[in-house]
């Protein structure tokens, strides 16, 4: 019996880990569908930025109350996972609370501490749920979040709530069994400051029933965690892992600085001087200017699409979104991810990407959205995890202007004025200093 349960545990644990590893590989493969970008230097500065934004959650604390609640859930999530280590060991060995004898009094402290954390998580998650579903905070009821994204957010809160309740229930029933010396396994280990209040629920239950409830909670808890791990791939909750690389590789330059396209530079140099030599490592066969699909974006932009938490801070601060335009920077990130996932399924099926007649621009993100941006950087500023939706918008404009010439007449007029008169308006360039007279 004991052997069977350990075997079952091992099978489930390894399959879950296998699926998880597989999903990680897929994410890595998909991110590399994007083009190159050098974000590997300045290691120290990058590390500090990651520490500040991802570990320290500094931007989250711009909104102190939600920031604090989020910090609680996050810290609790990490710390409670220490307990997971023991649960896994118990699962394999068929023992119970295998670490307790080694840790002694410290073990009691840890279990007590985890219980308090679990309670705090339950409270935070309930507040989060109320904010989304009862108070209907503006950024959560946006039209960006219909269908899956809305459900995703609620499912996660539900899973977190359930996991914490199972954890507490497991401890409560465990302590009853311990007090009754139910079997050798239930030695007096742990300190249960929160779950002891659940004990009265089980008044009048037979020890056998309580044993079954304890085992069920234990199994459901670990199954829930393994499920959650594999759910991440489909969820905005991927940010709990990817926020770290995303902040690490995020832009360290001034926000106002947009990249100068090297390919354009070489082309202009060649125009001026036909003997100009393009450096070997920058030679490209088919240069495409700007981006019409995910393959033209860089790997960091794709990583960011996977990392986006769909929190809507960016769109909340976007002047275009605020004035009812179609553009919403959050949607830019979500649609980019949708496209990556569609391409990913395509690659899974066909081994390589087989054109499906669609592109990120037009089929997922409309031109109207792209042209509504004022390049104000409000979205970049407000993102708590270093995402830059503006860079994707600009790359798409580049494609529309330099590859397709599909900008509006007004934009074309502005550009030809600059070309001919050195100013965006139709004035004579020799009148440029007439203001002096």
């Amino acid at each position, binding site marked *: 019996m004991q052997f069977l349960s350990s075997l079952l545990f091992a099978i489930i644990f390894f399959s879950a880990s296998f699926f998880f590893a597989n999903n990680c590989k897929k994410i890595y493969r998909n991110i590399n569908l994007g083009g190159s970008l050098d974000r590997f230097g300045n290691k120290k500065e990058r590390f500090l930025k990651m520490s500040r934004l991802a570990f320290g959650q500094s931007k989250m604390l711009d909104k102190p109350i939600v920031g604090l609640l989020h910090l609680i859930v996050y810290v609790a999530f990490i710390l409670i996972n220490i307990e997971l280590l023991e649960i896994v060991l118990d699962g394999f060995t068929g023992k119970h609370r295998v670490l307790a004898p080694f840790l002694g009094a410290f073990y009691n402290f840890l279990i007590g501490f985890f219980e308090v954390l679990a309670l705090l998580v339950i409270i935070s998650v309930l507040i989060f749920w109320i904010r989304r579903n009862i108070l209907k905070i503006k950024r959560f009821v946006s039209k960006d979040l219909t269908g899956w994204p809305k459900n995703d957010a609620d499912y996660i809160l539900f899973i977190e709530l359930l996991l914490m309740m199972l954890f507490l229930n497991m401890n409560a029933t465990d302590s009853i069994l311990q007090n009754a010396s139910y079997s050798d396994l239930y030695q007096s280990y742990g300190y249960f400051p929160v779950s002891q209040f659940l004990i009265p629920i089980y008044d009048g239950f037979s020890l056998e029933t309580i044993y079954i409830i304890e085992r069920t909670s234990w199994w459901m808890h670990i199954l829930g965690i393994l499920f959650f791990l594999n759910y991440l791939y489909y969820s905005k909750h991927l940010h709990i892992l990817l926020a770290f690389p995303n902040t690490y590789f995020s832009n360290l330059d001034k926000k106002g600085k947009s990249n*100068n396209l090297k390919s354009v530079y070489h082309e*202009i140099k060649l125009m001026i001087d036909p003997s100009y030599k393009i450096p070997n490592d920058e030679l490209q066969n088919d240069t495409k200017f700007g981006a019409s699909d995910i393959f033209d974006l860089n790997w960091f932009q794709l990583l960011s699409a996977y990392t986006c938490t769909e929190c809507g801070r960016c769109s909340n601060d976007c002047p275009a979104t605020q004035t009812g335009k179609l553009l919403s920077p959050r949607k830019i990130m979500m649609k980019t991810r949708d496209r990556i996932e569609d391409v990913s399924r395509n690659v899974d099926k066909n081994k390589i990407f087989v054109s499906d007649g669609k592109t990120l621009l037009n089929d997922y993100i409309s031109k109207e959205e792209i042209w509504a941006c*004022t390049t104000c950087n*409000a979205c970049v500023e407000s993102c708590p995890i270093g995402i830059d939706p503006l860079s994707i918008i600009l790359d798409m404009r580049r494609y529309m202007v*330099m590859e397709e010439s599909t*900008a509006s007449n*007004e934009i074309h*007029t502005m550009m030809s004025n600059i070309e001919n008169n050195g*100013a965006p308006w139709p004035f004579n360039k020799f009148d440029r200093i007439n*203001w002096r007279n």
Partner: protein
Amino acid sequence: MNVKTFKEYKELGISPDILFWVGCAGSYDDRAKKITKSLINLFNKSGISFGVLGVEESCSGDPAKRAGNEFLFQMQALSNIEVLNSYQVKKIVTACPHCFNTIKNEYPELGGIYEVVHHSQLIDQLINDGKLKIKDDQFNGKKITFHDPCYLGRANGEYYAPRKVIKALRADLKEMKSCKEKAMCCGAGGAQMFKDSEKGNKEINIKRTEEAIETKSNIIAAACPFCNTMLTDGIKSHENHKEVQVKDISELIDKVTD
């Protein structure tokens, strides 16, 4: 106007310390030309050595770049850099945050390496150094609100120089409900100035002007010619607030110094 071009100075064998990059708006737009003149007044009052490029100046390329025309941008940048380097320009000041941002951040990779400052930074410094002395108290206690230009604030992290300038007027600085890092855009950036806006339920400049009006200020201080236009238009469309003035910080300082 007491101002010479670098070319004229060169003929006199003089090379000025600072280049005043006037920008397209400052050169051609009637409202922005007034800002150009105020700034030149301030330079003359403080006795610094400066010149302009005049007809040798051309669009910095910012609107082209933000519209996605990297070709046109780099063409503009490279030819401007050629002119600037031919005069061995070391330091540039400009009243346009868009030119400021592009020349400061995007020109260096293309061969244009200069110390670039925004006029709010230079004015702040001139006041600190005692080169500009505030002699008049007409703004004493007056309510003034400041609109952060995106390309000075978020884009380059400069929130304080213009505020210090306003405080030097001894004015009562009233912040809008969104300001500094969180300041709302006026709606002109990213080449929006040159096109109609997309369909929505409000114009961005109207919304921003409402935030400014909520502060009950007499003056909206701007530090960008495009913001200035957008906010002026915004005020015009608010029937009851026509008395609110939109002024560049250089114009305010010009009024109280001599």
